[in-house]
């Protein structure tokens, strides 16, 4: 009996271990076979493709032999409710479209949720899995170039990119392409955003202004008075002392609830990424060590001491501030054009009487307040691996994507596959490009269409959606989401409407630096940034202003001077005007 137990035990262990090894083996033996297959396949296609490429320069040209592009993806759930459940990047209709029109198929090595992309991507690169096409951040872009891992796209862009795409970059003076170029070679297709999107605006609860008989602010002084009234005079009329003046989150640099707009009133330009502005001697200087920054911090300190800023702002992240906005505790907040779409719409759902209005930022003196914008705004680059056999296929895929999203009547060319209900999700494709001038185009076209009551001039499906939402809102729908849509994008005195006015008035201060992170920035960046954020927060909370001078000295000493030199070295060759 005993023996049998022991034997059984040993058997069990053996089975366990053999299961484990069998598991390993199977996986291991699978992989080389598979890779061998794809290699053969791609070798064959390579030969064909070479012949093809010579005669074929058609941006939408179809391959005779199927071309396989490997890809990786950072995904988040689709926004459109019509997208069928279970649609993943691997089975999205865009792949089918590429197969049908280009005979190119896209194979995903892996996909992860958006937030985890960088980590998985780094690990996957380090283990030798480099996909053919990928969308990468500035940091990864620089690293990949350093490693010599990227294909040169200079000629491919010239030959294959469709004119509409080229026109969009030209609309930005080709600066995005410049940012993607190293030593004269174009290494990626920048996903460029209109820099004016980051213009800071002042958002105020007009219903509170009305209740307390106040006028919209013209100066910082007015703003402080309004904030004081919002705190002390119980604007929500609930008899409780539970409202704040100015909403600020602990992370100063977000698109909403930052200190940026307020500081710009003092002609100081805190920013992330760092802003390098032109100094009086024509060289670039770091915006946040200028004396104006000191004034701005004093202004914020003053607000804090008067209780106009939440005493706990330094520990509140954006999520908490948004809770306060939604709950109707905050009456003034700085933010970009889109904030009605989120989170002000949620406040409107919670308090239908909430009436947010939008104003240009105000100045502390008689000079107009300028808002900081980047010369170029490239959040990501679409790049192609050096080992990719058909780099031009990547360009063609990008062309098709653009064609579907921004050219008229894609249904006529691609059929129903471009519809959300058939599994087309805008942000799923592995190469991702967005028309930089989208907001401006939408604003003009849709306002025109609304005026004429004629949507036939609209081009993209996005525009048609916005048009419908706007009509709903103008027809009396009071839901937060239609108001948010309309007020952020279409309304003349709304988000984009006011942004345009600021842009056209030229009240802008440019960040002139758009090169890669300099060597000292890579080494010291986080140290300097932590020091900066800590000092600024402490000053706002009441620390002596002398800490600012100490910060400036330390910043220079601990690497800031080196960074300044490096930035100016770059600037010599990349002056914009």
């Amino acid at each position: 009996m005993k023996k049998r137990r022991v034997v059984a035990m040993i058997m069990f262990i053996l089975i366990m271990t053999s299961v484990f090894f069998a598991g390993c083996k199977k996986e291991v033996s699978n992989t080389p076979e598979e890779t061998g297959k794809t290699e053969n396949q791609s070798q064959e296609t390579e030969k064909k493709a070479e012949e093809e490429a010579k005669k074929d320069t058609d941006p939408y040209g179809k391959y005779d032999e199927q071309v396989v592009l490997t890809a990786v993806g950072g995904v988040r759930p689709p926004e459109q409710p019509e997208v069928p459940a279970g649609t993943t990047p691997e089975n999205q209709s865009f792949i089918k479209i590429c197969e049908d029109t280009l005979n190119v198929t896209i194979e995903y090595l892996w996909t992860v949720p958006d937030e985890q992309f960088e980590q998985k991507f780094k690990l996957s690169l380090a283990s030798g899995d480099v996909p053919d096409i990928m969308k990468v951040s500035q940091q990864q872009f620089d690293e990949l170039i350093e490693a010599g891992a990227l294909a040169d796209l200079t000629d491919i862009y010239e030959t294959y990119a469709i004119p509409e795409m080229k026109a969009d970059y030209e609309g930005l003076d080709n600066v995005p392409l410049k940012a993607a170029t190293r030593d004269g070679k174009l290494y990626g297709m920048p996903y460029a955003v209109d820099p004016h999107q980051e213009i800071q605006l002042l958002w105020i609860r007009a219903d509170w202004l009305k209740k307390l008989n106040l006028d919209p602010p013209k100066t910082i002084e007015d703003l402080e008075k309004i904030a004081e009234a919002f705190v002390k005079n119980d604007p929500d009329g609930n008899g409780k002392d539970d409202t704040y003046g100015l909403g600020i989150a602990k992370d100063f640099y977000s698109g909403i609830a930052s200190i940026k707009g307020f500081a710009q009133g003092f002609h100081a330009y805190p920013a992330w990424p760092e802003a390098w502005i032109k100094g009086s001697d024509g060289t670039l200087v770091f915006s946040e060590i200028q004396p104006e920054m000191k004034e701005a911090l004093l202004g914020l300190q003053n607000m804090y001491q008067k209780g106009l800023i939440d005493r706990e702002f330094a520990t509140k992240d954006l999520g908490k501030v948004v809770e306060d906005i939604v709950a109707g505790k905050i009456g003034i907040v700085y933010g970009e054009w889109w904030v009605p779409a989120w989170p002000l719409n949620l406040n409107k759902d919670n308090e239908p009487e909430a009436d947010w209005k939008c104003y240009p930022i105000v100045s502390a003196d008689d000079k107009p307040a300028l808002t900081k914008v980047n010369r170029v705004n490239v959040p990501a680059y679409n790049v192609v691996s050096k080992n990719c056999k058909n780099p031009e296929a990547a360009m063609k895929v990008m062309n098709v994507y653009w064609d579907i999203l921004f050219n008229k009547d894609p249904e006529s060319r691609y059929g129903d596959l471009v519809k959300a209900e058939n599994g087309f999700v805008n942000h799923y494709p592995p190469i991702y490009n967005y028309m930089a001038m989208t907001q401006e185009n939408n604003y003009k076209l849709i306002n025109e269409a609304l005026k004429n009551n004629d949507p036939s001039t609209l081009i993209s499906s996005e525009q048609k959606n916005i048009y419908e939402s706007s009509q709903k809102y103008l027809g009396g729908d009071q839901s937060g989401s239609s108001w948010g849509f309309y007020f952020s994008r279409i309304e003349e005195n709304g988000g984009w409407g006011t942004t345009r006015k600021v842009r056209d008035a030229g009240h802008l201060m440019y960040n002139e630096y758009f090169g890669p992170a300099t060597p000292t920035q890579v080494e010291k960046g986080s140290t300097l940034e932590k020091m900066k954020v800590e000092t600024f927060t402490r000053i706002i909370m009441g620390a002596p202003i002398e800490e600012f001078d100490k910060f400036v000295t330390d910043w220079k000493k601990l690497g800031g001077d080196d960074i300044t030199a490096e930035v100016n070295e770059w600037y010599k060759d990349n002056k914009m005007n």
Partner: protein
Amino acid sequence: MIHKADWKRKIFILCNTLFLTLVTLISIFPIVHLLAVSLSSNVAANAGVVKMIPVGFTLEAYKFLMEKSDFLIAFGISLKRVALGTTINMVMVILTAYPLSKEKSAFKARTFYVWFFAFTMFFGGGLVPAYIVIQRTGLMNTLWALVIPGALNVWNMVMLLNFFRGIPKELEEAAIVDGANHFTILWKIYLPVSKPALATILLFTIVGHWNAWFDGMIYMNSPASYPLQTYLYTLVTQNFNKKLLTMDDIERLKNVSEKTLQIAQIFLGALPIMLVYPFLQKYFIKGIVVGSVKE
């Protein structure tokens, strides 16, 4: 005298009960809070006004969840992982702890082995090489990647080893005289008298597998194969950072508004593991005690 001692004891019991009740309340309030939020209206949750009682009571979030396949799929993967992982872990821990619990006189190489294992508690290669090893051994994107690398939990093993050493030697010696071998001794003597320790380690192993989220995130190649806690982690950690530059980021923020749904999933994610505890707990309270076997 006796009367006085009795009286003192009663006071102690009263104070003890009050104190432990307080500790209990402090411990359960977060889960009560989560439950309250998950049963509230979305607007109230977004405004952050829900404390311990639901505001605008609704079962909407749970109704929606029952139709949401990704939650259920992730839940299933977690169950599989716990079953497989716990079995492997327990076998490994027992098999390793037993030889190492021997004195040096009975097992000469034990000290070497012990340090061989203990060393790995303090030294590691880091994430990147671990990823490469997983990939090279073919575990990537399989459930095995979540259970094999940590198959031997050294911390638990050391703990069990110490419990094993507390077992009276006479039991073992008597068995050896009877001609029992090591496997029999382990099976017939060690395991039955170590139930409290085994229950403890079983609990930690189950909880460890249930709560693990990081390995799922890096070793799985598609969100569809994430275990529950990985899935929940990606829900909770919304990127509220300064990189709000793109239309993507702005669109993403809309998802944040589904707060009650998130919280309901967190609550349901913690629920099964809370049910495991009372089940195992009887072994901590009155395990089969060493002394009673002795006779």
